[in-house]
């Protein structure tokens, strides 16, 4: 009896150590990049020799980086707006209306995520050459929205399904049409999902690289594209500073989503 318990305890300890190592493996890149960005030496090394904000200053001073950040930020914001508008409307239609071919439509909507992003990037590149949308923010927004919309529809469909249909029926019976019901009744109820979808769409666009590789031009390119150029041409710790900033953006977005969801859910209940 005692042997059995000791055995299982040793087994459990091994399992936990193994899992801890895997989690360390997952965290390693993020942990490495941050100290490197504060290291004074020009080569990439670890452990860091000192502390400096030099690389962050370079990020702020060299013209290309701030421009790229601006393009990324504007594109991501507009993408979020477009994707959330189109996607939420579509999700509402999917969850509230009955029509033939719904399953086909659902598969169609997921296609942008299934088709390899390289193929999508090349296809859009080919189209944008003809439409003269290369190197334009409008082009970026359109392309990124294609990627973001399936995410938005997935999240908002789940959110709408969580709303008690009785509430909407009550609104309808009091005379509101579908559009008004959506705007005044359903949307406020799915605010957490709406926030998640918006921030997710923002992040999808902000971090997107493959499409940007094809539809950027020397004057208008995104932050990931600039980082890609840096990695290919000249690796220096400025890239670590930019990487740390990107990590900060991702973490910030995740934190806002987590905090707001809890905040909204608490105020609704």
């Amino acid at each position: 009896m005692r042997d059995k318990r000791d055995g299982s305890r040793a087994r459990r300890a091994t399992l936990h150590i193994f899992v801890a190592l895997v989690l360390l493996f997952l965290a390693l890149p993020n942990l490495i990049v941050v100290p490197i960005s504060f290291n004074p030496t020009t080569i990439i090394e670890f452990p860091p020799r000192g502390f400096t904000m030099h690389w962050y200053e370079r990020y702020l001073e060299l013209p290309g980086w701030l421009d790229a950040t601006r393009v990324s930020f504007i594109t991501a914001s507009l993408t979020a707006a477009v994707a959330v508008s189109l996607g939420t409307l579509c999700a509402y239609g999917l969850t509230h209306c009955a029509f033939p071919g719904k399953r086909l439509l659902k598969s169609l909507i997921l296609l942008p995520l299934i088709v390899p992003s390289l193929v999508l990037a090349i296809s859009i590149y080919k189209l944008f050459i003809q439409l003269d949308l290369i190197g334009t923010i409008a082009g970026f927004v359109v392309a990124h929205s294609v990627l973001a919309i399936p995410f938005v529809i997935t999240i908002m469909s789940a959110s709408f399904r969580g709303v008690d249909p009785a509430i909407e029926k009550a609104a309808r019976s009091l005379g509101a049409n579908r559009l008004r019901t959506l705007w005044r009744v359903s949307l406020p109820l799915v605010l957490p999902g709406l926030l998640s979808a918006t921030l997710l769409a923002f992040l999808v666009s902000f971090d997107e690289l493959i499409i940007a590789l094809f539809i950027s031009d020397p004057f208008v390119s995104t932050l990931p594209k600039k980082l890609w150029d840096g990695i290919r041409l000249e690796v220096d710790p400025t890239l670590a500073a930019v990487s740390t900033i990107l990590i900060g953006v991702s973490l910030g977005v995740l934190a806002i989503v987590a905090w707001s969801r809890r905040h909204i859910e608490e105020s609704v209940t």
Partner: protein
Amino acid sequence: MTLVFLVPCILFLALFFLLPVTSFLVRGFFDPGLTLRNYARAITGEIYLLILWRTIVTSFLTSLICLVLGYPVAYVVAHASGRTQAVILAFVLIPFWTSILVRVFAWIALLGRNGVINSALMQIGITDAPIPMLYNNFAVLLSMTHVMLPYMILPCFSVMKNISPSLTAAAENLGASPRRAFLRIYFPLSLPGAAAGCLLVFIISGGFYITPALLGGANGIFLSQLIEQEVNSSVDWSFASALSGILVVVTVSFYVLYERFVAFDDDLGEVQP
């Protein structure tokens, strides 16, 4: 009324997704007249078959390694208490939401000749010369595993958390050893999640471009890099389209297979003992 909700989105996707993608994929059948020449070239050319093989093998290996590393993590998360569960999930989700470029750059910093690992090994004295760990298949495999692990852990976890702990408890009460209870009861029930994870990792790895482009060797390119070369360097749109067509067909087929496992998972609501 339905149309008002659906039309803007469908129109948008049709115009900016369906149209360009089908237009590009159809290109593979024209050169310029209707012909299968490009597909024949893609399937028979020795260089191309090598690249295809390398892509498939690396994706398969990534799947396997992710399964071995990810399944135990999912198991521990599924059995963890609320607080521990949240912490472990954070460890899984934060890299998931970090830009892939940041992670690739970190691997360059880690694996380079003067990188973190080589410097550490040489300082400790394990090795005299830096080990070439970068710009080869090893680096690609390592980075792909790192990126794909959450795609394995999350499906496994979502299936595992629905497996009632009373099942293994009942088996042990009836005399089974913990190992037997796991192998005969728990493992088979968790299989749909593991299968879904493997398929997902395989599908996504197959289309990888950024990781092999930045971390791979110059002579060991992957399918996606070949396609990119055909578009940007050779400007052979028809051939690029044929190669993409093969990639898309394989990807979509495996995705359909994946969907069947996910649907199967939904039916797994109750378990017949």
